[in-house]
């Protein structure tokens, strides 16, 4: 517990009578890039704002660098924040935007100039210092927002969905830039997003949140490969995992999962499973492939979406829709019959209530 740089302990938050965060516990190591990800309304932004000091805490504690900061004003917490809308001061030049916080703290002028120059060169803003935010492009404004945070030399960087306002191409670029910055500075970063791709590509540690609770914490691939519950399983991965409700049946020496429509799906080993146990069969689209032979599952293709590098397909398995991917070009058309093979090593089984097995 003592090597955590930022710690949330039993945090609760309500707005009026609506409870938004229910008992959040989290430890964040120094220098790590932690992404809070989840659907809209799950409380991730609220959590971030509480860390910044913009929202009061109802109960629980937030500590930064071993200091409880519940009642410490934002400017003294050692944080800096990049907002979704960048929140640049529209009437001030880039240079003034960058130096504002130092001015508020009455830093000596030469220190201010130095800091501004430093931040500007790191973020390639040196030629834009006299411009107004209105004259900058989206990506440039992003960088000014980050520069403003840099200048404060904070202990913790807070990002609130900073890339949501950018178009797709710019988003990819800025993702790389933010990550590069993090690596260069080794600064503790808490990053909020609803985009799971951002989470997967940028994070050292991913925190999946839903409805005011933490669903799972772990490294990106860890969570991807072993989702602890249905929510995480479905949330990560695009297209999302196929989740098929059914029950376990035992045959002669083999086990299978019988879906509601009677189709049997293969089960490699039965472990602790009981017969007739209700279960949810989860398999990711990339682990289903078109099979050449007749041994696979018989399906009818319903949708073929070529996306360039891969093809997304929907198949109808006697009333149940399966999503899967194919890296090779597919010549089939909707309505064609085909066969699928499932890589049963990548199976995820869930109890219809929460947990996971195997």
């Amino acid at each position, binding site marked *: 517990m003592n090597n955590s740089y930022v710690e949330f302990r039993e945090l609760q938050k309500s707005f009026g009578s609506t409870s938004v965060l229910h008992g959040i516990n989290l430890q964040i190591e120094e220098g790590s890039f932690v992404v809070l990800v989840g659907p809209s309304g799950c409380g991730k932004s609220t959590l971030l704002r509480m860390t910044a000091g913009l929202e009061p805490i109802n109960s629980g504690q937030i500590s930064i660098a071993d200091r409880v900061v519940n009642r410490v004003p934002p400017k003294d917490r050692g944080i800096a924040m990049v907002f979704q809308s960048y929140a640049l001061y*529209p009437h001030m030049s880039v240079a003034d935007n960058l130096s*504002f*916080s130092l001015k508020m703290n009455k830093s000596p002028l030469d220190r201010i100039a130095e800091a501004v120059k430093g931040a500007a060169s790191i973020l390639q803003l040196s030629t834009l210092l006299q411009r107004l935010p209105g004259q900058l492009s989206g990506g440039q404004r992003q960088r000014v927002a980050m520069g403003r945070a840099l200048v404060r030399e904070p202990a913790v960087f807070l990002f609130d969905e900073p890339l949501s306002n950018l178009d797709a191409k710019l988003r990819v670029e800025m993702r790389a830039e933010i990550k590069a910055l993090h690596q260069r500075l080794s600064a503790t970063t808490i990053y909020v997003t609803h985009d799971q791709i951002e989470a997967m590509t940028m994070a050292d540690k991913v925190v999946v949140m839903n409805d005011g609770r933490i669903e799972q914490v772990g490294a990106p691939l860890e969570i991807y490969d072993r989702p602890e519950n249905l929510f995480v399983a479905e949330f990560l991965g695009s297209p999302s995992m196929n989740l098929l409700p059914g029950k376990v049946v035992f045959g002669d020496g083999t086990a299978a999962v019988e879906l509601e429509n009677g189709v049997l799906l293969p089960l490699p080993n039965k472990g602790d499973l009981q017969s007739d146990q209700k279960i949810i069969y989860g398999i990711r689209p990339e682990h289903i492939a078109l099979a050449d032979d007749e041994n696979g599952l018989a399906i009818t293709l319903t949708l073929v979406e070529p996306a360039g590098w891969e093809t997304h397909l929907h198949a109808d398995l006697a009333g149940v829709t399966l999503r899967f991917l194919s890296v090779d070009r597919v010549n089939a058309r909707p309505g064609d019959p085909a066969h699928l093979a499932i890589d049963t090593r990548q199976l995820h089984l869930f109890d219809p209530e929460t947990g996971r097995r195997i």
Partner: protein
Amino acid sequence: MSETLNHQEQPVLGRERSSLQHYLRRSRRFLLIGLPLAFLVIWTSVPILWAFMASLKEPLEIYESNTFFPRSPSLEAYQTVLAIDGFGKWIFNSVLVTVVATIVPLILSILAAYGFARYFFRFRHILLLLYLVPRIIPRVSLIVPLNDLMSNLGLINTYWVLYITYIASAVPLSTWILVGFFKSVPKEIEESATIDGANMWNRLRYVILPIAWPGVVTAAVLCIREGWNEFAFVLALVTETGMRTLPYALYTLRDSMGVQNFAVYNAFTILTVLPLLIVYLLLERRVVESIVTGAVK
């Protein structure tokens, strides 16, 4: 030039019609807009222009009124006005009262508007209502009780009575305008400033006011307008000629001006109107914009 288009399919701009139709349409449109526009301009400017012309004419010419433009324009009337005993005092009074009645309400309403815009406190709605309801009260109707009140306080005939009443009248309107403008400043910019270490005064000075300054300008112009043009309170609460403001002075001229002084009368009118008009025209854009965008209601 034949009609090739189905009537049902006329595009709004009539681009594809034949040229004659196009011309007819354009001239119809021109008339439809141009006539009311001309009427607007004439209607708005005639009273002022007429008075202005009259101020340049000789008195007899005005009376006979068979010309619009003066035959031999002269500024004599204006010289007479400026020479009227007490004119300087009246201007001074008007300016003084207007300045006070603009600066003080502005300060008060900036503070109040900031409070309403950014803080959520228990009695917010009630207090805001208390600020806005007074706008319903016709100022005229208050002259009766105010006279009574001010007499008891011994404030009749002082600058103070005007200051107090003007400020009280101006604050509601000013606050209403500013609350709208302050609210439109994105909260995140202020939050960023808070993180940067700005306290409330810093935020007002460096963030809110610079961004919302069109609102401040509009509120200022409207305060100036009310201070400069106000009449009923002066009528009721100020009895000494030396303490009068311009509108009242203009009013009293009514009976003391015979035919030979019409030019002077008009010149006086123009002079009372001019300063405020100049202020307006300088800041016209902001004010018009604000009203049109519904910030002033």
